[in-house]
């Protein structure tokens, strides 16, 4: 089994998103960043209400995931750290977030990535503060990335395919 870059990485997120670094044991299995606290909602200019992690960092979905699988691994997961399910189970839903839509999907390299309406959720390494959505509609790592509305609707900009 290959070791997951995404898991290693999220220390970028560690500093900036308030996630918890769990299991900081040395290699061979790198540390994994788990969600800490509830999935929340935040209004962003031009996008309306979108999902964020507990620290307010924007969450994204990856179109090639096709609503069901975790396809962003290796270097992709370095740029887009997946939101892993903590050992205690799925995170709670903050106000406006639908508990029934929160789930998890297996990461090919181990662990469970939190999903919403079936979409695996990721943060973006270049979002350096809560309220940023620099990754919105960015085509990278083989497909476009979008923020997601609490209704489960992917927020695509007008004219996006």
């Amino acid at each position, binding site marked *: 089994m*290959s*070791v997951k*870059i*995404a898991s*290693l*990485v*999220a*220390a*970028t997120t*560690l*500093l900036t998103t308030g996630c918890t670094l769990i299991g900081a044991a*040395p*290699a*061979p299995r790198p540390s994994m960043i788990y969600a800490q606290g509830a999935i929340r909602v935040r209004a962003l200019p031009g996008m309306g209400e979108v999902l964020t992690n507990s620290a307010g960092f924007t969450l994204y979905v990856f179109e090639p995931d096709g609503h069901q699988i975790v396809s962003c691994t*290796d*270097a*992709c*997961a*370095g*740029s887009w*750290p997946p939101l892993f399910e903590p050992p205690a189970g799925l995170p709670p839903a903050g106000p406006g977030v639908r508990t029934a839509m929160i789930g998890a999907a297996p990461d090919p390299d181990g662990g469970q990535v939190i999903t919403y309406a079936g979409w695996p959720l990721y943060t973006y*390494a*270049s979002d*350096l503060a809560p309220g940023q959505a*620099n*990754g919105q509609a*960015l*085509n*990278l*790592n*083989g497909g476009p990335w979008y923020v997601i509305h609490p209704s489960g609707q992917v927020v695509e900009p007008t004219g996006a395919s």
Partner: protein
Amino acid sequence: MTGIGRRAVVLGGVGLAGLTLGSSGAIAAADLASPPGRTQPPATEDLMTDHGLLKRILLIYREASHRLRTGDTLDPNTVFHSAQIVHDYIESFHEGIEEGFVFPALLKANTLTDTVRTLLVQHDRGRKITVAIIGATSAMAMNGMPAAPGLRTAAGRTQVAGWLDAFVTMYEPHEAREDTEVFPAFREVTTDRQFALVSEQVAEAQHRDYGDNAVAHFLEQIAGIEKQVGIHDLNAFTPPEPRTMEGH
């Protein structure tokens, strides 16, 4: 032996040695576990090779920008193809490795934190400039737009030249800073054992995503583009010997 197989061997070696040997002992175990003739280059060496690849694209961008501003002939496909390599490899893989391995290690060690934040902003800015360059120089007519739509007017060509210049201006210091400060600092804060594992993982991921000899393949394409834009002759960059005032 496959990449995974090689890694398993390396992991085995580290597993046996890691707890009892010093850090230099762990890396020695990893080296001994590698098959003869298949020594894994350090991850930082791979990343610096990628920077050389990017530097050659920056030279293409600089020449393309010059031609766009002077009105000299320029095949839009040279810019399009270069930007595609940046998008598909540098921004999708190389930067993902930095964001996945290098930057988190520095942040965790509270080292170069301001630099890392700036580099992350620049990664994002570069990705958006690349998307704009690709859209402006696309070789195919799509969605009712003609081929290379951004180059059809003088204003458009000036705009694309500005994007190329901005990309070059940003990435020259970006990669120089990474080579001289960030990668050495990463090596400093990473144990030999972890560094060996990261190197192995980077090679494995590159092989999985791009196949054998990925960088050589990209360099071959870049060499072809260099020929197209007339900057392939290394000797042409050699200036004449300086002449002092006394020589006149």
